């Protein structure tokens, strides 16, 4: 009997990101099942997942990771949900010289300046998000006003988005407190800025959290009054319900269950429907992809879990996911992956589930994702 392969999954089982974290865990289990053909073993070694709840707290995540490596003697770890937790965890992987597969925390600096060689990421980075989103609005003569939350996530997102725009111009950046509920003032500033300008005018929204501004934006009827459009990135399904206020709105998304037709995704959608009665979401796909990355790597090393073996197996490794092929870029271990340019279905009804149509799959080679960890 070979030794078990122990993997710690540290994520927000509770806390503000509870809903996201649970999707990841569900995806991870499905992914392992799919990748191992239901045996849950690689090379005769059984894969054991040890779940830990970081509650969204960086300090807790940090000590849980240390305890996983040291007390539980896991072979590698995966997680967490929040970027803040991830950043606090990174040095721990280095201290214990064990692999940490980041999924789905998005901050650029995870594979950027805070990166170390034990860090891999299957999740998309903010840059990938921003670049793909830029593609959807980037046309000559377009004026863009951004609307984002006033904290690191929002500001970084806008910066990356601006960097990625080649042809369109940003004429206004609006930052609102992360907990804003009354958008009147912010909207007013944007409208005052845009309304008298010529050309195509777009408000690009980067908003995380529970109170997105879409319904309120729709109430303003900006398209009819001033010819101003709205665009934004994808999100989890419940958060995209308000998108229906804008039939025809475009943007780019990390995942939407109907977009890709590869076997992994078909299996995922079918099985998710049959087990949970709902389609798989954003983070389910992420967890699924991470599982496939792990299994691919273990297969490559023939079940050897030595850290150096794993690292050399994973660097440059390509693997199947519900989103198609991903590749861990050698330099910063970021998984290069497709993103999806979507359009909200023309007949979308407010209140109903989000209904997105695929405009175009944006392939990895169509996005120039900068390497930010100084390791060229």
């Amino acid at each position, binding site marked *: 009997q070979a030794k078990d392969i122990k993997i710690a999954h540290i994520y927000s089982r509770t806390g503000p990101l509870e809903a996201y974290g649970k999707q990841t865990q569900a995806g991870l289990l499905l992914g392992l099942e799919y990748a191992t053909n239901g045996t849950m073993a690689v090379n005769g070694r059984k894969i054991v997942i040890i779940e830990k709840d970081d509650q969204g707290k960086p300090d807790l995540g940090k000590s849980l990771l240390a*305890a996983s490596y040291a*007390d539980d003697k896991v072979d590698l770890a995966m997680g967490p949900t929040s970027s803040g937790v991830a*950043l606090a965890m990174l*040095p721990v992987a280095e201290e214990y010289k064990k692999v940490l597969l980041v999924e789905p925390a998005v901050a650029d600096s995870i594979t950027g300046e805070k990166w170390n060689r034990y860090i891999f990421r299957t999740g998309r980075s903010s840059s990938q998000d921003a670049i793909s989103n830029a593609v959807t609005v980037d046309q000559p003569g377009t004026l863009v006003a951004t609307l984002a939350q006033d904290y690191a996530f929002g500001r970084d997102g806008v910066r990356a988005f601006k960097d990625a725009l080649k042809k369109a111009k940003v004429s206004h950046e609006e930052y609102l407190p992360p907990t804003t509920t009354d958008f009147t003032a912010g909207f007013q500033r944007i409208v005052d800025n845009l309304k008298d300008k010529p050309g195509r005018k777009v408000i690009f929204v980067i908003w995380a959290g529970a109170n997105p501004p879409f319904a309120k934006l729709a109430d303003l009827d900006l398209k009819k009054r001033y010819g101003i459009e709205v665009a934004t990135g994808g999100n989890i399904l419940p958060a995209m319900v308000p998108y229906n206020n804008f039939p025809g709105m475009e943007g780019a998304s990390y995942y939407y269950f109907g977009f890709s037709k590869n076997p992994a995704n078909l299996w995922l959608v079918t099985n998710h429907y049959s087990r949970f009665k709902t389609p798989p979401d954003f983070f389910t796909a992420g967890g699924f992809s991470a599982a496939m990355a792990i299994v691919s790597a273990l297969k490559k090393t023939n079940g050897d879990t030595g850290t150096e073996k794993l690292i050399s197996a994973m660097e440059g490794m390509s693997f199947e996911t519900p989103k198609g092929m991903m590749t861990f870029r050698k330099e910063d271990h970021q998984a290069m992956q497709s993103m999806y340019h979507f359009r909200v279905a023309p007949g979308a009804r407010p209140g109903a589930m989000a209904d997105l149509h695929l405009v175009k799959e944006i392939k990895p080679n169509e996005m120039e994702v900068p390497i930010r960890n100084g390791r060229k």
Partner: protein
Amino acid sequence: MLQRILSNDQPRSRVLAVLLLAVFVALALTPFIVPGVKALNVAAKILVFIVLVASFDLLLGYTGIVSFAHTMFFGIGAYGVAIASTRMGPGWSSILTGLVVALALSFVLALLVGLFSLRVRAIFFSMITLAVAAAFQTLASQLSDLTGGEDGLTFKMPEILSPSWQLFEEPVLGVAIDGRFVAYYLLFVAALVLFLAMLRIVNSPFGRVLQAIRENEFRAEAIGYRVVYFRTMSSILSALFATLAGAMLAIWLRYNGPDTSLSFEIMLDVLLIVVIGGMGTIYGAAIGSGIFVVAQSYLQDLLKHGSDAASGLPWLAALLSPDRWLLWLGLLFVLSVYYFPTGIVGRLRAARSAA
């Protein structure tokens, strides 16, 4: 001798004395008796909380001021060390600089808050501190160039406190004498000294006047104590001790962020511990922190066993799910008010005097 160390404030209950001794011994020997990173982390957190909670007891239990801004000072201490270590690089001088700056800032803020407390009635003051604390947390995440924003700061400590530092190649008594080990005992000594210092303060004439003010501010003034002065002094002292606790936390975690040291949740934990332990006793801080931090750290594990055992009853299993640990924490809040109105220390002491 022991009496002098304890500032003549004996536990006044045999059970309490035993409990205190148990906490002391357990903390002193944690690295030797409980193996593992998690246990050490829990013990270190207890040490930090003992200082933090005792400092809050000085304010709440002895002076009767309900302030929600206490974590602000805790955060200042943690950020002081974090920012200095990030900007100046790891080293003792960074820690010292950060600490001094943090103490100075806490002093000024505590002075301001303390003075404001005299203008409005107590309940308003509490609500104001609540708002101030929230504002400070927002500020900390806004000033991301300095504080690392929401993501916080990860930084390094001087060599001797880093995990990579090893005194001996081989473990001693099964324990690796490494940087973590040193850091733990640094925390332990700091906590012990600060705890005894606070015990001394509350048992000094100064502390007695604080109690008098808590009971009847008007009369305290009338017999010649300047309430403004004592209140402000108490605010400042407690803020400074909280700042030191914050620095201890930063040294241990080598990380700090708004959630870690400034969140309202910590404030609540502190409040709860003071009440569970026994307000106005200082000893309550030690007992309460020990019990609470251990419970909090292992609650999810415990619930997991519970929900596994209850898997036959779906609704019970759902309630016992580790994901609903907060539910049980909430229940703890409620029950502690029900059953420990005077805290564990108060209870034990009352049991003794009734006997």
